[in-house]
């Protein structure tokens, strides 16, 4: 059981990781994905909230002339469903290609 948290400066493995160009590639690509997806979710959600606050009439419109449901319902449901799908997109890449890269870095570092 490794109950002691390793003192960072005592671990030379970290220095080796930093010298590995693959590590910088991993950080760059994964961070870009995470930030892009976060931006998509936040911009989408806060735009929606701004419409709710300032132009509620847009969401009140019926789906079609004889429809009881308003356009707001499918838009709202889409925000939930699409942001969930984006967690799938992130997990797919982070657990796929990026995880392989991480495993490679770990192997090269610890051998």
């Amino acid at each position, binding site marked *: 059981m490794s*109950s002691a948290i390793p003192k960072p400066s005592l*671990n030379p493995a970290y220095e080796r*990781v930093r010298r590995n160009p693959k590590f910088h590639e991993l950080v760059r690509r994964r961070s870009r994905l995470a930030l892009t997806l976060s931006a998509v979710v936040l911009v989408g959600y806060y735009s929606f909230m701004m419409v709710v*606050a300032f132009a509620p009439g847009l969401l009140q*419109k019926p789906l079609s002339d004889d429809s*009881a449901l*308003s356009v707001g319902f499918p838009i709202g449901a889409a925000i939930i469903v699409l942001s969930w799908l984006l967690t799938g997109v992130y997990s797919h890449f982070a657990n796929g290609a990026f995880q392989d890269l991480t495993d490679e870095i770990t192997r090269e570092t610890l051998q």
Partner: protein
Amino acid sequence: MNARKILTPALSLAGAACLFALPALAAGGDLGAVDKQPVNLSAIGMFIAFVMMTLGITYWAASRTKSTSDFYTAGGGITGFQNGLAIAGDYMSAATLLGLSSLVFAKGYDGFVYTISFFVGWPIILFLLAERLRNLGHFTFADIASYRLDQGKIRTFAAIGSLTVVCFYLIVQMVGAGQLIKLLFGLDYNVAVIVVGVLMVVYVTFGGMIATTWVQIIKAVLLLGGGVVLTFLALSRFGFSLEAIAKSAIASHKDGVKIMGPGTLLADPVSAVSLSLGLLFGTAALPHIMMRFFTVPNAREARKSVFYASGFIGFFFLLVCILGMAAITIVGTDPQFFEGGKVGGKLIGGGNMPVMHLAKALGGDLFLGFLSAVAFATILAVVSGLALAGASAIAHDLYARVIRKGEATEREEMRVSKMASLVLGVLAVVLGIAFEKQNVAFLVGLTFGVAASVNFPVLILSMYWKGLTTRGALAGGIAGLISAVTMVVLSNAVWVVVLNNPAPIFPYEQPALFSMTLAFLVTIIVSKLDRSASARAERAAFDDQFVRSQTGIGAAAAAKH
């Protein structure tokens, strides 16, 4: 009385604020004082069956809980799918089911907007936090905050932050539990609070994280199952057409076609933003939610957990909205659910009851009993997680790391953590009974305000910003704590409701927009001005921490069994 407010046409943001914390808690201050109902035998029978099953699991878990790692994190042996269900269970509380559906029932589309706001935090938690939490954390969030900062000071501070959140939240849960159970089961308030306290202590002290997780998983499955069946029954009344539900709801609701669009609930953008920030980052920094990321073996499973969790939560939230819309017709036009049989008057049991009445209308007394039992189970599961998070802050952070400076044996630490959960259980019962007649809505704002303004800034900056120093973290944390508490005291929930002043000094219910911003600013400024030698060492240690947060190299390993 907040529950009633939901039904009044002039629902103010003050009323909205109590709903703010609905997803993660069990109907806290929202129920208000409720009338005791006749004893519901089928509900009690099904609840006893649930308790028997969970006690069986606790017995099994006890035999597998040997080390501190088993106790705090189930030995890191929970899979991503299981953890996803457990996280979803933490988030889909009795209050989500009751509160969000009643909001849709009362306000139509506005309730849906709230539901969406409760959801969007999850993708962000995945993108920015989940894998780093797993890679850096071991047992508690203080492990991360104190990784390269002063162990004694930051760990103490983080543990106090966690304990504050845990205690406030426990009170809210206990009061909610007592009132909900009085209402649904017809049991005495004190009996309900003691039952919750005793079971919580049994689960946690004997079964640790393994039992706590499985209780949460079982409850999540029951709640999802119940929600699906109820939605199916509701849809079948309308020929499985959402269009028919909407048409009928417009005809039945006093606001008519207005319920199909945004109303007045979120008309003030500052409140809306503060509310969603508090919810988003407050949730991310709740100790019993963060703790769940340490129960999986690695970052890969941590990511999967959030993917599954947000899938279950999103699905459940959509069901809840359909239920609320269906209830507008089925419950809202049926005199048997209104006091004195007056349609449009006061709902029997209060404003949070539409979904329960819907269960009775569609599935009879037996289904109502089932749903009531699930609601009770939900509270039990959430308080167990809270007690465990509190116990780990006391035993792991304060006792083992700060007081004994890492010299305590595992056996000693385990003993302290079990004693801590017992003390927390007694405290929860005592406070639950003491606060029975109090309006606890302000504790909800406080819980999320403190989590977002004290725990969150130090957590995120320690992971993302090299310049963070011990002094900066302490100064910012204290600024966040003082400002969050002050703003809640000056807000409507305390200043007007508790202290009986005519108007609030702080006009918003959720302080996060202001207190969190202040905490970040103070932390950054003080860190930048910090020229001490220890600050230099702390900044230098960031690079190693960064490697570990990205790769998991050096992170606590998975279960041995």
